[in-house]
Each structure stands twice: as C-alpha cells, then as structure tokens.
C-alpha cells in the first residue's frame, strides 16, 4: 500500500459527546471511512453527565482533514459536541494488559525490578499465568511489551483505546449545554418544547 506521508500527518484526538442513542458509532465511523482515515484507537463510555456518551478517537490526519471530519461529525443530529486536539493539549492514557507464563515469569528473576522500572502492577497470578497491568502512553506500554516479548514472551497482550482529558480551562461541552439552556429559556414563551 502507498505510504501515506507522515510528514504532514499528525496524531489527533477527536473527542465527541453524544446523546445515548443507538447507531451513533456507525454514524461516526462512516465519516472517517469515507475519507479513508484509519481509526487508530477508539474508546466509548458514559460521560460524567447523565445520558451523555463520550467517544475518544485517535487518528493520523492533516489538520485540514481533521477539521472537516470533526465538522461533519458535529453536524450529525445526535452529536452534542465534537472537537479535536493534539497531544500537547491533553492529558491522556492507555491501559495495557500482559499475560505471561507464571513459570517463566518467576524464572526471570528480575521481576521486581521490571515492575518498578515500568510502573506496572500484577493484577492476577495463578499457577499458569500472570497478568500485568500498565497504563501510560503508547510508547511506554509498547516498551514493556517489547522487553517482555524479547525475554520471556507474552501469551496475550491487549491495549485499550486512549482516554483523554483536555488541559484547557474551557469546558466546551458544559459551555455548550449552558448556552443551549439559555436559548431554550429565551424561547420558552408558552411553546411546548420537547426533544
């Protein structure tokens, strides 16, 4: 396949708040697919606000493209707010789990050192397997994976999608909701309103 020149492309984190309705993920992903943008990571969960879901999606794109994609997403009826950020604007983490053979893990000898070095922790240990957990940025979870693979081997490995929080003082969703509230208030001159 072609080398999608990484020079102008950057990793963007798209954060989307939506109503909790069926089929929204599909609506969002088709917008990426149509522009041949690959979703690197995806995580979806209820947000702090009741009934509102939050999607965190990372993708490599140039700014012009990501701007257009986010506008298309924002336009969907059930999307409350969509915006994009680069890593500098965000605090973000991914979580990784590593399943290892208990026997080899113990034989390795350097277990404590390794766990301290990577700030990992043991989630589960039984006769057959050990499960380590590490959260961090991609490179960090990847570094542990590499080291384990090269030494005792990894039986299973899984990394979550990114979760992210903006550093800025602006809270776009709550600002937007407050604004909508104000508008609704202004319009409430006897008209019945439901959504």
């Amino acid at each position: 396949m072609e080398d999608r020149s990484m020079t102008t492309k950057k990793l963007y984190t798209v954060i989307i708040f939506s109503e909790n309705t069926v089929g929204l993920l599909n609506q969002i992903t088709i917008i990426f697919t149509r522009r041949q943008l690959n979703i690197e990571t995806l995580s979806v969960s209820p947000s702090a606000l009741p009934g509102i879901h939050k999607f965190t999606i990372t993708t490599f794109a140039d700014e012009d493209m990501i701007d257009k994609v986010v506008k298309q997403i924002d336009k969907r009826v059930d999307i409350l707010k969509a915006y994009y950020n680069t890593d500098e604007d965000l605090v973000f983490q991914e979580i990784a789990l590593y399943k290892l053979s208990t026997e080899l893990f113990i034989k390795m000898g350097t277990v404590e050192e390794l766990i301290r070095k990577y700030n990992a922790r043991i989630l589960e240990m039984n006769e057959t397997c050990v499960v380590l957990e590490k959260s961090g940025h991609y490179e960090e979870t990847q570094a542990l994976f590499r080291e384990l693979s090269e030494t005792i081997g990894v039986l299973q490995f899984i990394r979550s999608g990114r979760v992210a929080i903006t550093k800025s003082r602006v809270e776009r969703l709550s600002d937007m909701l407050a604004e909508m509230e104000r508008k609704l208030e202004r319009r409430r001159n006897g008209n019945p309103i439901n959504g």
Partner: protein
Amino acid sequence: MITGSEALLRALIDEGVDTIFGYPGGQAIPIYDSLYDYRDKLRHILVRHEQGATHAAQGYARVSGKVGVTLVTSGPGATNTITGIADAMIDSTPIVVIAGQVPSPLLGTDAFQEIDVIGITQPITKWAYQIRKPEEIAWAVSRAFYIASTGRPGPVVLDFAKDAQVGMVDYQYKKVDYIRSYQPEPDIKPERIRDAAALINAAQKPFCLVGQGVILGEAEEEMKAFLQKNDIPAGCTTLGLSALPSDFPLNKGMLGMHGNVGPNRKTNECDVLIAVGMRFDDRVTGDLATYAKQAKIIHLDIDNSEIGKNVPVDVKVLGDAKQTLPMITSLLEKRKRPEWNAEFDPDAAEEYTKVIEKELYPTSGYLKMGEVIRQVSEATDNDAVLVTDVGQNQMMAVRYFKHKQTRSVVTSGGLGTMGFGLPAAIGAKVGAPERTVCFFTGDGGLQMTLQELGTIMQEKLDVKIILLNNNFLGMVRQWQELFFHKRYSATEMENPDFVQIAKAYGIASREVQRRDELADAIREMVSHKGPYLLVADVEEEGTVYPMTPAGATVTTILMGDE
C-alpha cells in the same frame, strides 16, 4: 387507544401533511389499511416504483417548500428509495421516507423482506430512526419533520416495525421544536457581518454566487436587496436558479461547467467573491487550485461544515441567510458600479454569437435542443415550473428556460440522477397544481422511470413532457466526442415509438422533426388540457456549450469554435 398505523397518519396530519407518495407491501399493509379511513385527509399517490415515490416527494418539496412524504414497504420497497434519499441529501431537499419493517422480534434474523434500512441510509440521511414501539410514533414523526425541514434541510428515514404499526397507543400530538444536540439556526457573529460589509464596501469588483440556500432560506427578497444596494453582479448555481428572476439586471446567468461565460470568467477577475448558500461543488469551481485565487472570499451558509470545505474563506458568515443578508445589507454603502457590471457584456456577447444564437435561432439542419426549450419557455410565458432529467437535456434546459418566480427549477444537481425527472415532475405538479409544469428529458433518462407515466395517467396530472430525443445517451456521447476520440461506446440507443407509448397510457402525444412544425406542436401541447408528451427529434450529435472540462480552470471554456 388507536393502532400505531393510525397514530402515524394522525401524526402526519398534525405535521400538516396532506399528500403521500407511496407504494404498499407486506410490512406496510396495516398503514395502508388505516390510510383507507383517512382518504379524505391524506391524498395517496400510487407511483409505479419506489424510486419514483422519493423523487416525487422531492419535486413536491422543491416547488412547495413543504416536506415531501414517501411511504413504502420493507426490503425491496425500502432499497428502491435509496437513490431518491441520496439525491435529497446532496441537494438538501426535505423529505421524510417511512418504510415498513418486519416485526421487531424478527429483526436481525434475515426475515422475509428484512433489510438493515437504518444501516443503509445513515450515510445519506440527516436522521434515520427505527420505530419499534407505538409510543415512539408521535415523537419520532414530529422529530423527523423538524429535522428534515430546519437548518440545512434534508431527508429523514423512519423505519417502522410492523409490531409498532399494529400495537395500540394513546396518541397525543407533541410538537418537537427543540433538540438539545441540534442547532439548526447557528448564532450569528456580528463581527463577521461587519467584516463582510467592510470587504464589500471596499471592493472594486465584487461578485456574488447565489445558491439554493437562498431559496431554501426564503431569502430571495433579501438577496435582491443586498445585490441592488451595492450594485453587485451575481451568478446562480444550477440549484440556485430562479432565486433571482432571469431578467433581474444583476443576474448575469448560471455558474459552472455549462454555465454562462461571464459569471465563470468573472469568478477569476473579481476582487471580492460573496457566496450565499452554495457549496463550491466541483461542477461550479473546476480546478480548485486556480479558483478565485485573486479574490477575498466571503461565505454565507447555514451549514458550518460547508464553510471552508472546498475553498478557503476569508470571512465566514455562519447563519440563516434570511437574517445575515439584511444585516450585511444594512451596513453596505449605496453604490453604482456601471463599469464593473458592463464588464460582463462582452462575455455575454461572445457567448451569444459563438453559442446561444446558433442554439436558439438555427435556420437550417435538425432541430436543436435549445430552440425547443426557448420556444416552450416563451409559450408558457417564461413562468412555468421547469423540471429536468439529467444530461444534455438538463444543461440545455437550465441554460435556456426562463423564470419569473422562485422555486421554479426542479433538477437533480449533486447526484445527477437520470430518471429523476418524470417522478419529480409528478411531485412538482402535485405541489404546485396551479402552475404549468414543463419537464424536459432525454431518451435515456425518460426510460429509466418511464413507468411513472402510469401514475400520471391514474392521477390525471397535467404534466407537459418534452422529450429531446437524440437517440443517444447524449451527455456521455458528448464526452466521448470531445475527450475519447468519438469512440461511442455504449451510448447509441435504439428507441421505441414514444408516441405509441404515451398513447398506451392515454397521454396525448406528438412527434416533431421539422422546424416549421415546432411552434404549432408546442402550442398544441400548452393548450391541451391534461398531460402531453412532445417528442422532439433533435440533432443526434448536438453538443452543450460552453463547457469547462472537468477539473479545468473555471476560465477554460470550450465554445465549439476551438
């Protein structure tokens, strides 16, 4: 308590619906059964193919400004509507398509005539929703109409499970006019209004692009006042046609691939370009890298995702043009720009001698599309609703048919859907019964939805059909001629006797080949009460000029004298 089916009809009536274009089937029978009791309130027009139902709903919406409604069954009934839904999406036409669906316990089981309507239509709708419970009907229908008709309009699909159709519900109308996550009318930024006005006031050569947004926003008068105050010449996109009357002095013609020479050339000569409710489609811009680079660009649109999508914009005026235009106008200086406006004249003169005169007033040879169109336009006092199909007939018709009032052009712009025209003409006639509807088509496109002649027959719809028959898929043939060394691959058509076909449907018809019969035939068609098919045998290898080849700079204009 009433059934879900009846609740659906009540909800439609509460939304002001009086006409439905549809086609029944297994998973819609309960709705049709209820419809039997509501025949006096809801006119149901039985089309001959569900694609026709969507295009008819589009034609209806485009001329009336109301939401068009389509009712079909599940499975193939629903999939047959896809082209119309896609067409409505790209051309911002408000329609609501209601499709029956298998009972909800059967969803996901590949039941007979089950299809994932929501999955299929999500990319081509503003909103697609599956109704699974009768309690959802009142809300879903009202929400559908609200979404379809507000902001930038578009299609909405309601996928209506059969168990919700037959279940009982205590129906109560509840108007939806607020959705927390949906802001159809974005806030207007006063500084953008000021910036726009300042740019225009300082401009020497401002030029305005008028799009369908002006019509959809009912901002025609605001548009005229804006242009007049500062004496700004304008070009219309194909879908923007009739927002300004053809003879409005500042209306310099149509933009785009087969548009008028002046507007296209001046795009690359103006110093400020003001785009109103249009989306810089590639058929308008040609090569973006060379498009209006010299100009500062102001873009007025209600859809934030359109501003800056194709063309970088200097002043973004997000908002409803009905509001933003007069706000800008109030800050404009009264100006007269006679020299700048006169700069369009030589272009118009050149186009007239090189293209228009030959097309509209030929004295020898076969009939030309242009002369037929001009004569029909004149015979209907330049005030009919123009419906077109797609291809050469379309480009010729939008070039040469004239308009006096808004909402007078119904054509498939963004999707370029052959077969759109005949059912759209049906919808247009139903939506504007007091107006004359003239539908121009090609032999290819007419045969794509020819079966709708049956609908015209049954509903006795007075649609004037003008077939510009060239026995070719003309527009493709034109490209083959110009860009593929006349290798006419799969574009020649052996055609039936269209007059006989019309007769079989009880539709009056006449074929003309000779110039000296044309006026009489048109007179006969126009004075005939009821539908009429005029078959005009036009020159086989006619070409639509001017033409800016796809992807070329907007000022690269072929006029047939190369």
